[in-house]
């Protein structure tokens, strides 16, 4: 099938036509003809988005999300590849489990699924999982993470960083010093002090990031830092990069937009666990630093940390509620709101931070390519104009734990193409 996207603004530039055939972009120009025409007048064309950090919950918590529902949500959000985090049940710490997740992704076919392998057996933090077996499996794992838990043992972290060099892997660290965050409920600061909630201090993230940057430099390995949330972390990463060390980092959409004072005061009441997430929402100063870091490239990419939870795990008192928020279907809108509307990033920058760079970090072949003839035809068409309240009932995700319900956000994904085939058309699954 040949598609001809008419009058799309490639990376926000002047209107042009894009012809897709046999999974590849065959031609870009004006006045092209031939193929099924898709009118993209006024729409922005971006390369298909790549998420380094997605919780698809399968196997084990299919009540919250499945590979099928999660990849449908991803496609609706403009993603063409997602990394499925390893903290499933059973944990994705063997070739068998990562291959199962990979196969489920192949079967749904609306978005590529790249399984992340656990660093340690059962996320236990005690001995290395069979990283090589996962790398050599059909899933070809390149990103390893105990996400949700920190690889806090310095020796184990050093070994993991060294070991994955053999197959060009990367350790994605969930930076959280465990002793400093026992029973932690929210960012430690003025709000936690008033609310009487146990604090999650910024230093617990920053201390691990500093240590791991030094370790990565010492052994000459690649390190990726998950969901950076503090201004101090940004400073440390900036310093590590200035040394030429091989450190990359991601930030979530929610850490680019939301702050911890929402827990005290918001339209959905005080102590609403819809805002409970790990790492926690931080302060306005942190948000400002994260935005600037994403703009100047200190933080390489946006990753959603899409974390679905069933209603009952959020409809409770704060202390008993699960941590996490969904984000696949709102990511691009939140990035537009926090980065584009503020003038910090143009659409070429968005494409770089949400497609090219995450694809490079995850070694995801066939993704994150420039919109040019010869590239894989994975494309998002995005309308930046409409601004409407977020309505979670329309989400493809099985879960509804979005912090943006009722909030007016700009933009809407109109179409997504995965290797030349539409997965989303007119804002709906194709």
């Amino acid at each position, binding site marked *: 099938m040949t598609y001809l996207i008419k009058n799309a603004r490639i990376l926000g530039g002047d209107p042009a036509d894009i012809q897709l055939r046999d999974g590849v972009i065959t031609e870009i120009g004006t006045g092209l003809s031939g193929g099924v025409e898709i009118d993209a007048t006024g729409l922005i064309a971006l390369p298909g988005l790549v998420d380094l950090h997605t919780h698809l919950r399968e196997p084990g918590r299919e009540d919250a999300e499945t590979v099928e529902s999660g990849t449908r949500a991803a496609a609706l959000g403009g993603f063409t590849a997602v990394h499925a985090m390893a903290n499933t049940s059973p944990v994705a710490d063997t070739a068998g489990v990562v291959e199962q997740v990979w196969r489920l992704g192949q079967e749904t076919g609306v978005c590529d699924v790249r399984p992340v392998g656990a660093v340690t057996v059962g996320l236990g933090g005690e001995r290395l999982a069979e990283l090589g077996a996962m790398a050599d499996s059909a899933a070809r794992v390149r990103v390893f993470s105990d996400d949700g838990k920190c690889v806090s043992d310095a020796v184990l972290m050093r070994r993991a960083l060294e070991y994955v060099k053999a197959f060009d892997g990367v350790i994605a660290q969930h930076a959280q010093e465990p002793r400093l965050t026992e029973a932690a409920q929210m960012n430690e600061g003025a709000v*936690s002090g*008033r609310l009487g909630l146990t604090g999650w201090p910024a230093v617990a993230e920053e201390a691990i990031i500093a240590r791991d940057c030094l370790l990565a430099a010492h052994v000459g390995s690649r390190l990726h830092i998950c969901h950076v949330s503090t201004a101090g972390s940004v400073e440390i990463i900036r310093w590590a990069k200035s040394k030429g060390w091989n450190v990359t980092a991601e930030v979530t959409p929610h850490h680019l937009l939301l702050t911890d004072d929402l827990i005290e005061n918001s339209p959905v009441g005080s*102590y609403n666990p819809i805002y409970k997430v790990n790492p926690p929402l931080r302060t306005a100063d942190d948000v400002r630093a994260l935005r600037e870091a994403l703009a100047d490239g200190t933080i390489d990419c946006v990753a959603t940390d899409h974390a679905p939870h069933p209603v009952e795990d959020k409809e409770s008192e704060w202390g008993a509620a699960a941590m996490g928020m969904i984000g696949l279907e709102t990511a691009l809108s939140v990035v537009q709101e926090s980065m584009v509307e503020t003038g910090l990033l143009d659409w070429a920058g968005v494409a770089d931070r949400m497609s090219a760079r995450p694809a490079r970090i995850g070694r995801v072949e066939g993704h994150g390519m420039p919109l040019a003839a010869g590239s894989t035809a994975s494309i998002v068409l995005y309308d930046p104009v409409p601004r409407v309240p977020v309505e979670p009932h329309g989400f493809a995700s099985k879960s509804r734990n979005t912090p943006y319900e009722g909030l007016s956000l700009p933009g809407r994904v109109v179409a997504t193409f995965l290797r030349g085939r539409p997965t989303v058309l007119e804002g709906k699954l194709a």
Partner: protein
Amino acid sequence: MNRHLISAADLSRDDALLILDTADELARVSDRSIKKLPTLRGRTVVNLFFEDSTRTRISFEAAAKRLSADVINFSAKGSSVSKGESLKDTALTLQAMGADAVVIRHGASGAPHRLASWVDGSIVNAGDGTHEHPTQALLDAFTMRRRLSTLEGRRVTIVGDVLHSRVARSNVLLLRTLGAEVTLVAPPTLLPVTVESWPCEVSYDLDSVLPKSDVVMMLRVQTERMNAAFFPSAREYSRRYGLDRDRLAKMPEEAIVMHPGPMNRGMEIAADVADSARSTIVEQVANGVTIRMAVLYLLLGGETL
């Protein structure tokens, strides 16, 4: 006044004074031989206690009964809650039973805020986690006002585990509203890291603050804090922050000693200080019933006294 009493911050100066003045009137009733008033007849007050607290529960129960309300005591132990029922389902059950007021004690900070979003009745916070305990602050203010005639300009020193204390949080807010000057005294480990943003003074040195105090309120120190390295030992804590007879002597003549109970005698407060004439500890308990009567009366809009 607000429909709920969840935080001391919910109370304006006028609200707080209305509660204290109403309590003054109700205290006169308590002095009569027949203590019961008919004002809340036919209204239902539920005591929903997820934490053991016999003192507070009995205080609320007595208050509601003296106003002729029907009282339902619901404690988590041995109830559906211990079988895994969620707070929301408990709330919906109470809602279906038609509770006019729910008095809640819960180990999680913010539980009363959540409850308020699920039930129509008035919510009274009887202590939530390490957040607040507003009726304790009201009864403390009531006790201070009776002893010191006014709170305006009075210097109140609160000593102890401020970090984990709901009593301290509510007192700081309410005393500020009522015009008192509050100083918190604690080892730095037992203060929130951002305590400088609170509307009060902070000191690490009890001895320097005592001569300038009209009220010294000692907070209970949980022994488990010691195991978490908040301070080296009970003895060291007691030496640096405990109120003994020597320290009592440094306080101005008219100054009073308060404690929300239960006390660790010999730890934060010496036995002879707790039992001295300057101590208001027993009065606080009696005033607790009176102030809770005033709160229930005003929230449930009882008939005129």
